[in-house]
């Protein structure tokens, strides 16, 4: 079923992603990219119908940090606003639904993460089952490594193939001025075997913002809007021992609902923080070698947690805006081992 309204991404901006941004508070990091997307479209805060953000206080250990970040929007007189304690891709989903219902015609979506303040591997253990998992503090790299070993045991990949994904991603990132790791590099030692340093994302800080608009408004604001043809998100069981870690049924289901399999895509921006997770996603999304996967470098080149998924949607949209893609898939993930997955299909009109 096609969406009830035509909604497009009309602007996208992201910060340079850096290992440390000690000199910046969160609002100081976010504000410049909010100004960038507004100036790309010529909109003012007062023109925006709905604002939605994604972040988590746990990353930098700052209670209610999202209300501080809102200072960068200019929220007076009061604006219609919401926040998700999730990756900004889910904030974009909320904004899309808001526009589909007719309650708004434009939306500003942003997300940010400042992983440098804490130990992100430990912080992410706090999202796990508090009874059976969190007391063991299984960190994000360790859980991804369990998934990688399951893939190796199943014959779906091996260490050289994973190294190839790392090299391809970071080579692609050479064309991405915002990337934290641009250019191929040695795989390094095992961080948690079978994953080496090169199989894991960099730790860093960054932010991203997107503007959505409906129908003719989108055409006024952008020369070639990236129309959202479908978007859906699904979740697998929480317990890792219940899941088949070599597959991602929730990604496949979300893709079916988003219309991915109706016609081939030419580009896919996948939110795969670990090389092994690209293997799972390619299988679930039935992507063959004709598809350009992560031309931005993906999460292996820059992983500002909470913004990485929104950046995948923004990067896919940017390729439609500049004419390098006509039909792109964007994917975002959340939770351990690709637990929850969002898939969007973006299209440009014939050039």
């Amino acid at each position, binding site marked *: 079923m096609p969406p009830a309204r035509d909604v497009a991404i009309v602007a996208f901006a992201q910060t340079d992603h850096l290992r440390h941004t*000690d*000199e*910046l*508070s*969160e*609002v*100081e990091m976010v*504000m410049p990219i*909010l*100004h960038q997307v507004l100036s790309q479209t010529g909109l003012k*805060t007062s023109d925006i119908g709905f604002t939605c953000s994604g972040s988590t206080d*746990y990353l*930098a*250990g*700052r209670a209610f940090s999202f209300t*501080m970040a*809102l*200072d*960068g*929007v*200019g*929220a*007076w007189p009061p604006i219609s606003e919401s926040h998700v304690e999730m990756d900004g891709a889910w904030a974009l989903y909320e904004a899309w639904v808001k526009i589909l219902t007719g309650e708004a015609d434009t939306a500003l979506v942003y997300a940010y993460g400042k992983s440098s*303040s*804490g*130990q992100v*591997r*430990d*912080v992410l253990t*706090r999202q796990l089952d*508090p*009874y*059976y*998992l*969190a*007391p*063991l*503090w*299984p*960190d994000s790299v*360790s*859980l991804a*490594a*369990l*998934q*990688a*070993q*399951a893939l190796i*045991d199943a014959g779906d990949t091996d260490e050289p193939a994973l190294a190839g994904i790392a090299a391809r991603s970071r080579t692609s990132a050479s064309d991405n001025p915002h990337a934290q790791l641009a250019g191929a590099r040695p795989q390094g030692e*095992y961080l*948690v*075997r*079978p994953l080496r340093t090169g199989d894991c994302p960099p730790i860093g800080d960054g932010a991203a913002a997107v503007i959505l608009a409906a129908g003719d408004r989108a055409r006024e604001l952008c020369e070639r809007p990236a129309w959202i043809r479908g978007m859906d998100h699904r979740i697998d*069981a*929480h*317990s*890792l*021992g*219940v899941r088949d*870690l070599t597959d991602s049924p929730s990604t496949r289901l979300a893709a079916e609902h988003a219309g991915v399999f109706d016609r081939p895509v030419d580009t896919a921006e996948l939110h795969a923080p670990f090389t092994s997770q690209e293997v799972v996603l390619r299988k679930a999304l039935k992507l063959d070698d004709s598809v350009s996967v992560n031309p931005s470098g993906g999460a292996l080149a820059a992983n500002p947690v909470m913004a990485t998924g929104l950046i995948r949607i923004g990067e896919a949209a940017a390729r439609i805006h500049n004419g390098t893609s006509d039909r792109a898939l964007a994917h975002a993930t959340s939770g351990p081992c690709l637990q929850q997955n969002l898939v969007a299909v973006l299209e440009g009109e014939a050039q």
Partner: protein
Amino acid sequence: MTAASPPEVLRAPLVVEFPFTRSLGPVQSAFLTGLRERTVLGVRTGDGKVLVPPVEYDPVTAEEIRDLVEVAPTGTVTTWAWNPSPRRDQPLKTPFAWVLVKLDGADTAILHALDAPGPESVHTGLRVRIRWAGDRTGAITDIACFEPYEGKTGEAAGPHEGRFADMVTGIIAPARLDYTYSPGRAQTRYINALSERKTVGERCPSCHKVYVPPRGACPTCGVATTDQVEVGPAGTVTTYCIVNIKARNLDIEVPYVYGHIALDGADLALHGRIGGIPYDQVRMGLRVEPVWTEGGRYPDHYRPTGEPDADYDAYKELI
């Protein structure tokens, strides 16, 4: 007024520590109490599968499931990952393998640590058994870890009542996260000025309001505050409350007064304690000034200046 210059970055350690007290459902309660008694329980789903660790609801159908069975303390590794540098709160202090283990009699796997000499000795399919913790309280950590085991397969699954003496009904899960806090440009400038006993706000270039303390952005206009403006030192109490409850770790006699104080030149009131005056004589419009203590990096409190009270009209916009 001076133009902002790049400050030296301030940093301070920040520890966020919290004990979560969580109640257990009937299935979780039976499972965790069972661990205390060296008994591993699973739960049977509608289609006959045994889930270990057990949950209250079927992860596929969402059906309520209560049919408990006992499984063996032995099992098989279904996947593993070698962790060469254990992190602070992980189950073992020496290098170990994370493992998912399907216990004999179970259809799903449980996550835990495996104590093994090195990655060469671990593989998928390895037979393991539970090593029980010496001190067991009814928590997942009652399993100290798994260890390789070449003995016979444990006893097959059998029905279990799930009843034990003194059932565990809740857990207290402590959590500690360590951060390095850095406050950003605007707050760094503010804190640096405070250490010289000056209160410096920042002006919005668009609406010209002076924010104290500054946070880097004008929340009305959504732009960066640019100019530093020294305000005060004196100010006006715009509103206040009388505190009658003694805060933990705070060495101040109750009752005391906590107020909003609009420093002269500021367009936003800041918070501060008001002293040097009986609590029941503090009033709106009272003129106050900061009191600094030896070595203090911010005003200890504010005290009356002795000036006449400010007119209500002079501060009503700042309440």
